[in-house]
């Protein structure tokens, strides 16, 4: 349902972790999420984007127009090979909101920018 998708987006946008757990006064940092469906991207060591690919009634090609699920994807770009802890946080959030219906679709390295790119695809039951 769209409400569940919105809840997932809200949860991803508020992901945060301690910048340096070893520090005496650790600072909580959030994962900057790109806005406006990929038209802007924040300047950050790691940032994420989330996108709904298409509406539920387009999922079946047999003209039944029956709402089954919402599909979309989450992308993480990071200058750090490990993803700086965001990989674990994103997968935990997907598991919580998508009832396990997600998969790591690709993990690539962009030579031009030096960024590592994770792409997860998810479904949310309607």
């Amino acid at each position, binding site marked *: 349902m769209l409400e569940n998708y919105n809840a997932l987006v809200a949860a991803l946008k508020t992901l945060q972790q301690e910048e340096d757990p070893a520090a005496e006064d650790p600072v909580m940092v959030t994962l900057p999420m790109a806005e406006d*469906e*990929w*038209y*802007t*991207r*924040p*300047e950050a060591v790691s940032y994420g*984007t989330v*996108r709904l*690919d*298409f509406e539920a009634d*387009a*999922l*079946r*090609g*047999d003209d039944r127009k029956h709402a089954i699920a919402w*599909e979309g*994807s989450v*992308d993480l*770009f990071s200058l750090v090979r490990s993803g700086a802890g965001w990989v674990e946080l994103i997968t935990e959030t997907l598991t919580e909101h998508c009832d396990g219906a997600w998969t790591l*679709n*690709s993990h*690539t390295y*962009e030579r*031009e*920018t030096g*960024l590592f*790119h994770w*792409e997860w*695809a998810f479904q949310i039951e309607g």
Partner: protein
Amino acid sequence: MAFTIKVEGLTELISKMDKAPKNAEKVAAKALYEGAGVMADAVSQAVQGIATEPFKYASRGKTRKPSPEEKALVASAKHGVAKFRKNGMSVNTSVGFQNAGYGQIGNKTKPIPLIANAINSGTSFMQKQPFIRKAFSQKKGAAEAAIEAGILKYEDELEIG
């Protein structure tokens, strides 16, 4: 990119195929080809829907759409159904741009599978347009139906041991 289609409710036929190991793979491959064809056609159609804009380097903090030249390369590239792979009694294949080769944009030669992947999955500087995944999701039901129809169509070719 791979996907799995599971055909259920054909216990009797599977039992029949179990007794005919000699040519069961051949029949399964023929049926799979019917379904893969549906997917390949869907991908070809989806390529036409890719949004483009005149080429420009992505400005700071912005992403860009693929250029018309990049779209034309992907659209005209050799793509479709990959060579079938056997794994025991199962047969599987892929639909995509694995052997699409290279294309020329300006004075640069670029691998077409990478361009297709950049459009489909997006990059830090190119907007994502998941045309392959969208085509697969939309035509999954039709592909399953085509495979089931293919199995029934070629059922008579099974040589029962």
